[in-house]
């Protein structure tokens, strides 16, 4: 009898070797549809079972209140884009962040872009301070979280998904260029925005942890493939102390902190480790030295990564995928502290043979102790 996904992930997070490498998958709707058709399966659950994707951690978060009524425009937007109306994405509506449908390309899912940042016109910190944020006491806010925790906690690690907290939520509300300008030229405004968002995120974290989550998961994108959006100096001045306060909500209860950031965030990995993250995703394979991260911090954090979704999965051959997977298993998997899958969403341009090769290789060679072909 193998480990449950929960046992497997918790073992990996404790820097021990589980029965096999825990597997996750970010598969765009098109890719899931193609794979289900290929295997003749009806649901994603069946698909994940078939491929060995055990998704050790499940994210739960806050929903709009039970009596929340979407505007007809938002209902239509969801209908077109393929989202459920009352989902975590609906929080954009509550915050007044407007989105419009964007390019579709060849995907079944249409993209959107931000069309209005509600705090963009503010000129005084007091305007930020006066803003009312979504009421966390509203009935139904954590319905879904409670239900999922109850149903899945024995088998999965449940993470309190805070989503975008300071930087990403900050620019969604203020506009990215405006927030950058605040950081450089208007520290009072920058702090007003970030302190307001920090207080809110701490409240959400406390409530999700009270409900029984195993930790919190923060998702902020700090870099592009070349480097970070802002300097490490500015990051340390404004963001590091605030993240520490947020992470401490979990750490002082002995709970976990998962952190996601796309891009090359090499300059701040040490800082994130210092303030208590347990897992870092995706340690982007196209632009970060994953082996260096493993060597420097592998005893403190889990590297939650995968095959390059920008290069190998869409443009490589199955052989390329196999080689990249074996390389990761060879250098990153030993000793635990390792989770694997797709580095980010495998979108509609990814041949399913590549996805199949990724998981078949993991299932064949990802059993501990790792033994690889010569």
């Amino acid at each position: 009898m193998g480990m449950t996904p929960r046992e497997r992930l918790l073992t990996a997070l404790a820097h021990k070797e589980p029965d096999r490498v825990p597997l996750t998958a970010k598969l765009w709707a098109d890719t899931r549809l193609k794979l289900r058709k290929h295997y003749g399966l009806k649901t994603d659950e069946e698909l994940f079972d078939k491929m060995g994707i055990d998704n050790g951690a499940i994210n739960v978060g806050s929903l709009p209140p039970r009596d929340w009524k979407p505007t007809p425009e938002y209902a239509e937007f969801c209908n077109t884009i393929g989202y459920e109306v009352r989902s975590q994405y609906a929080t954009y509506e509550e915050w007044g962040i407007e989105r419009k449908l964007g390019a579709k390309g060849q995907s079944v899912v249409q993209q959107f872009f931000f069309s209005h940042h509600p705090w963009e016109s503010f000129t005084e910190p007091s305007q930020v301070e006066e803003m009312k944020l979504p009421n966390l006491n509203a009935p139904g806010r954590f319905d879904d979280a409670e239900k999922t925790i109850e149903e899945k906690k024995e088998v999965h690690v449940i993470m309190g998904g805070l989503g975008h907290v300071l930087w990403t939520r900050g620019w969604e509300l203020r506009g990215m260029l405006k927030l950058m300008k605040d950081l450089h030229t208007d520290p009072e405004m920058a702090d007003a925005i970030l302190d307001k968002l920090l207080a809110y995120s701490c409240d959400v974290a406390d409530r999700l942890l009270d409900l029984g989550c195993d930790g919190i998961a923060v998702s902020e994108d700090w870099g592009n493939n070349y480097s970070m959006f802002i300097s490490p100096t500015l990051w340390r001045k404004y963001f590091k102390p605030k993240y520490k306060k947020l992470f401490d909500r979990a750490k002082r209860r002995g709970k976990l902190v998962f952190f996601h950031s796309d891009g090359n965030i090499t300059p701040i990995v040490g800082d994130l480790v210092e303030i208590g993250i347990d897992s870092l995703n995706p340690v982007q394979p196209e632009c970060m030295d994953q082996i260096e991260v493993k060597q420097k911090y592998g005893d403190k954090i889990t590297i939650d990564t995968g095959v390059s979704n920008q290069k190998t999965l869409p443009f490589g051959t199955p052989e390329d995928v196999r080689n990249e997977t074996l390389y990761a298993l060879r250098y990153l998997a030993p000793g635990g502290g390792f989770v694997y899958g797709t580095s980010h969403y495998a979108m509609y341009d990814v041949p399913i043979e590549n996805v199949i090769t990724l998981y078949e290789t993991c299932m064949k060679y990802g059993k501990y102790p790792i033994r690889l072909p010569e």
Partner: protein
Amino acid sequence: MVDANDLRQAIVDLKYREIGGMVKAALEAGTSPLDILDSLKKGLNAVGELYHKREYFLSELYMAGETMQAAMEVLMPTLSRETQTGDEGTVVIGSIQGDIHDFGKAIAKTFLTASGFTVHDLGVDVPPAKFVEEALKVNADIIGVSALLSSTQPSSGDVVKILKERGIRDKFKVILGGTAVTEWAIKEFGLDAAVNDATEGVRIMKRWMEEKRGWE
């Protein structure tokens, strides 16, 4: 007394709030507008270098552009008509069909404009044929395609394909930019250059224009 080096350094130090007053003081002290412009451009080039060394980051690039713009607001009325127009070359730029991301394109545009290029921005989600149409219409030297997503990068090859079909491939240089772009795309899509860094892109485009002027 504000000298040329102060102005260069003010751009490097992102003195967004102070730069307008500094330019005004330099003008009042009798510094020629062209000398001031030259110092500001040197400052912007230095910011590009710092970005390459990863000592500066995207927000510094953006703020350098904003600082340059604040300086130009004071300087522009004093420049002659000839020096106001972008005489470095003409670039048609846009985010390719299927892609609605425009941040990288905005940075590229700022640096191109500051470097003396005339930029025609087609916006986002631009069909490949539109790049070609516009390039012909404005007699561009360069077509700049921006693509963030791996799934939209191949459409840059469609721009090249259309140019070839119409027998005008040699008329324009084609450059692809985007954070996930690698040099691999040059051969794959038949491009002249592919960069993941706007300042590097501008450097390449300036080199192309120098070469072109050399031929003429």
